[in-house]
């Protein structure tokens, strides 16, 4: 049966199979094979095909290999951005456990092409985002108004609410993107996004029932970013969660494009 939702976006999705023309911006992606499980569409060309199918204009990503070896992996991200300069932008991945690499990355950041900010997978590294090793990164992000995508999860003590709040206060011009929106600890994520102008919620892997509706009802529709973790997840799932959320059409458009455009616009 046909869905009874009343939405031009839903109608377009159902009739054409994508949101072509809207210019969806995916603020949280990766690239390359992953050890944890099979990813059939992990190479840049495969990902562009997926983006085309779904109607995603831009993907901001960090390379899987960069999460392990920042030197080699970020170079691969650079190559992909150079190959698809109108589809990809990069987060330069850093690991505070390797402070020399981190410092070198920050010093070299301005020389890179198409990187818009940084990515820290703090919980995996068990290194908190407020460690002294991260200071050069946050100082630069503050100075240049750069986005920093964090992996945040409920109960995390490395990039949890306390650490995010501390950084948001200390570096108010740095843009903090809470990847996965503190999964499960939605109230903390919403509180931080509401309280600090430089803190955003990002949705990938955070599509539990009602989360988007709650965020919008709690007043942060201007602070929510769409993300998919591509090539982990078929973007159609996340797009469906946004479009079939019980929120206004205006809020859907903000989440899928306009909020990210405000953050990344100059770099796209």
């Amino acid at each position, binding site marked *: 049966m046909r*869905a009874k939702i009343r939405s031009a976006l839903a109608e377009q*999705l159902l009739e054409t*199979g994508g949101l072509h023309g809207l210019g969806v911006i995916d603020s949280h992606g990766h690239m390359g094979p992953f050890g944890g499980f*099979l990813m059939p*569409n992990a190479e840049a060309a495969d990902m562009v095909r997926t983006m085309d199918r779904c109607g995603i204009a831009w993907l901001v990503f960090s390379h899987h290999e960069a999460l392990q070896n920042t030197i080699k992996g970020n170079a691969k991200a650079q190559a992909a951005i150079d190959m698809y300069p109108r589809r990809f932008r990069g987060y330069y991945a850093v690991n505070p456990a390797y402070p020399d690499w981190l410092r070198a990355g920050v010093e070299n950041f301005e020389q890179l092409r198409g990187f818009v900010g940084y990515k820290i997978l703090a919980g995996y590294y068990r290194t908190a985002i407020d460690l002294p090793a991260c200071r050069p990164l946050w100082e630069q992000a503050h100075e240049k108004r750069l986005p920093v995508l964090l992996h945040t999860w409920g109960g995390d003590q490395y990039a949890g609410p306390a650490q995010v709040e501390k950084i948001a206060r200390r570096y108010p011009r740095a843009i903090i993107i809470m990847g996965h929106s503190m999964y499960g600890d939605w109230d903390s994520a919403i509180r931080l996004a509401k309280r600090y102008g430089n803190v955003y919620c990002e949705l990938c892997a955070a599509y539990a*029932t*009602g989360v988007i509706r709650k965020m919008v009802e709690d007043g942060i529709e201007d602070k929510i970013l769409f993300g998919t973790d591509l090539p982990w997840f078929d*973007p159609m799932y996340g797009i469906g969660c946004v479009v*079939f959320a019980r929120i206004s059409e205006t809020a859907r458009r903000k989440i899928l494009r306009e909020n990210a455009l405000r953050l990344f616009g100059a770099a796209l």
Partner: protein
Amino acid sequence: MKKIMRRRTAKTDARQLPAYPAPDLRLFDCYAHIGSPCQPPLYPALDAEALLAEMDFCGVDAALVHSANTPLASPVVCNQEIADLCRLHRRLQPAWDILPPQTDEMPVERLLRDMRAAGVKVLRARPDEYRFAMNALTCGELFEEISARRIPLFWAARDWGRMHEIVRDFPRLRVVACDLGCWGSDRYFRPLLATSENFYLEISSYELDGGITRLVRKYGAERILFGSGFHYRPMGGASLLVRNLDIPRQAKEMIGHANLERLLRESKP
């Protein structure tokens, strides 16, 4: 277990037809929940009306309903609740939870008799929640009966080693691995898809980009079932993903509803 040959039939080869959307695709959700769990989702479906409203909103025709009132409430009670609730709504079909027969809470004969009376065609195993061992010693008698009667058994995929053993020990048992988790589980379930014709997948949390397309190409669409995971997971995401999969219409029909309808038809409690 016998080796399943690649089922690349003309009807299900994803490469033969271009992808196209299916706004009118019939969807029969095999994994929806109603109830008041101890740790509820943000907007729990407490009654049939809440589930039906979401189904209408997302365009889902029918649903196989599992109880969310577990594990503190007895499955004996929850099973009856779900049956009563579904009896009032033609679009909803009940699924029941099992207990091992040795404790006399749910003797096999009585379970089957009650299933027939309530029109129940599907069972679900929750061994961790209800504290029993999912093995031949505990469940052999029950599994032999439900294998012979082709009653599908849903089982949340947590311990894949145990699942491999059960599928090996009961080759005629129709096992539906559900709730796979969003981390891809291909390395766990593909050996089962490759070797057991009675092993099925429920895909509510199998979001892997390109995953279903490749499964259809390699194993056919016959053992893949659309599920939403609602009320824990959004129905809109799962339903849109299936509608817009890059596979032929016939494979979508199988995944969207026909495979489950066949399982229900063939189930004879």
